[in-house]
């Protein structure tokens, strides 16, 4: 009996193993094609484990802040001097901004300009960096129940971080600007030239589809253009870092490595709605 049972058991085990390998391969192929299924599996797991990640990410961020503070203590003097100088400069800018704001308001009134819809935002903690080496994403601990929706833009302190690519009930995945699959419509601030910022997994994504003879110089600020209606226009993205062989690379303003929190911006595309009429473009986002 035993002599028979052993080979059978080994065979069953081998068969089960082969089934697992086939299942894995099948998942890879099906997942590549059926994005909805992949997303559902991902968000379910992410929803389940985000609270655990949050519990660890918080003390980690606190520890990092503490280390930073200790570091700052040593440079308090220089920092103070620098800040005083910056303050003086910013006060002048403030003065200017106030004047411009008044000007703007007056001119808008004269021209009856419709202003972009008010945007609101949800703040979420970054609980997961990307695990693999071949994707650039972040897991944040806010989801559908907090008002986060797919396609919304995630902002760091300094600028755009990325786009919400997947969203669960209480977690969401942000596709960073640097990811291979990231495409964001942008414009150069000075010249208003438009292009597409596309990631290639390097630190500095490149601007594609700029007009052929465009004048671009390093240091030019890059903003979202608002084309496609997914991102609000005018959000700071980064600055032109290098131009080599016609390839324009952008250094994002967002510091991915020191990002604790992101703001997910809720933005509704302005729709032409006449008074007393149903929205002209039902179902469009």
């Amino acid at each position, binding site marked *: 009996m035993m002599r028979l049972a052993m080979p059978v058991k080994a065979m069953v085990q081998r068969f089960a193993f082969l089934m697992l390998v086939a299942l*894995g391969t099948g998942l*890879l192929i099906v*997942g590549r094609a059926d994005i909805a299924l992949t997303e559902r599996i991902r968000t379910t797991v992410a929803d389940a484990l985000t609270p655990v990640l949050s519990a660890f990410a918080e003390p980690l961020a606190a520890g990092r802040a503490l280390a930073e503070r200790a570091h700052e203590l040593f440079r308090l003097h220089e920092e103070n001097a620098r800040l005083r100088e910056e303050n003086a400069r910013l006060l002048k800018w403030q003065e200017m901004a106030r004047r411009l704001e008044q000007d703007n308001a007056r001119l808008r009134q004269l021209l009856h300009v419709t202003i972009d819809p008010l945007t609101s935002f949800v703040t979420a903690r970054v609980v997961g960096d990307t*695990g693999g080496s071949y994707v650039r994403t972040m897991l944040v601990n806010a989801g559908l129940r907090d008002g986060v929706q797919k396609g919304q833009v995630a902002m760091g302190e300094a600028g755009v971080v990325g786009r919400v690519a997947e969203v669960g009930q209480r977690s969401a995945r942000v596709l960073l600007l640097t990811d291979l699959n990231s495409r964001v419509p942008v414009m150069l601030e000075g010249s208003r030239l438009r292009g597409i910022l596309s990631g290639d*997994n390097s630190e500095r994504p490149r601007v594609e589809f700029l007009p052929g003879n465009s004048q671009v110089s390093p240091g030019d600020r890059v903003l979202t253009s608002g084309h496609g209606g997914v991102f609000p226009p005018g959000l700071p993205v980064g600055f032109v870092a290098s131009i080599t062989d016609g390839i324009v690379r952008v250094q994002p303003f967002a510091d991915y490595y*020191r990002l604790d929190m992101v703001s997910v911006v809720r933005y509704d595309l302005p729709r032409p709605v006449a008074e007393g009429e149903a929205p002209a473009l039902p179902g469009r986002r």
Partner: protein
Amino acid sequence: MPGFVRRLRGFGRRLAPSLFGVALILLALLPFGLPQFSSVMPLLSVIAVYYWGVYRPDLLPAWAAFALGLVEDALSGGPLGLMALVLALVQGVCVSQRRFLAGAGFVVGWSGFALVAGGAALFIWSVSSLYYLHLFDPRQALAQWALTVFAYPLLAWTFLLAERRMLQPG
């Protein structure tokens, strides 16, 4: 009552390696805030599956390795099924080579791991390249492999302690 407690302990014992695995996957995902680190994060789950596959395959069977990989895929945002496949294959290789690896000393175990981890890193790199139709920088895979090999002794030692403390039967 003692019977119940014993059964509970036995259950915990059998579950411990999988829980270790999940903890390692979460650890690898945490935002450490170090530049470039997340792109070369050691393949901690491969270490766990290798260790248990060689020394105690009864505690982490192939399907558990597969499930761990699936969790990792879901959380990391990479191709779904990739790590599941990798971890199941690593487990299979370990079990088949276990007679040779388990009896040998630490250095042989470590060398064996270096080989297995190299295969895993290469597999991940090539499948990712195919999946995204983009030739990724192989240096990244190389760096990840090196870090994984260096991380092995520390984790293996932790697992050994855990095994001695709580997983010995009886």
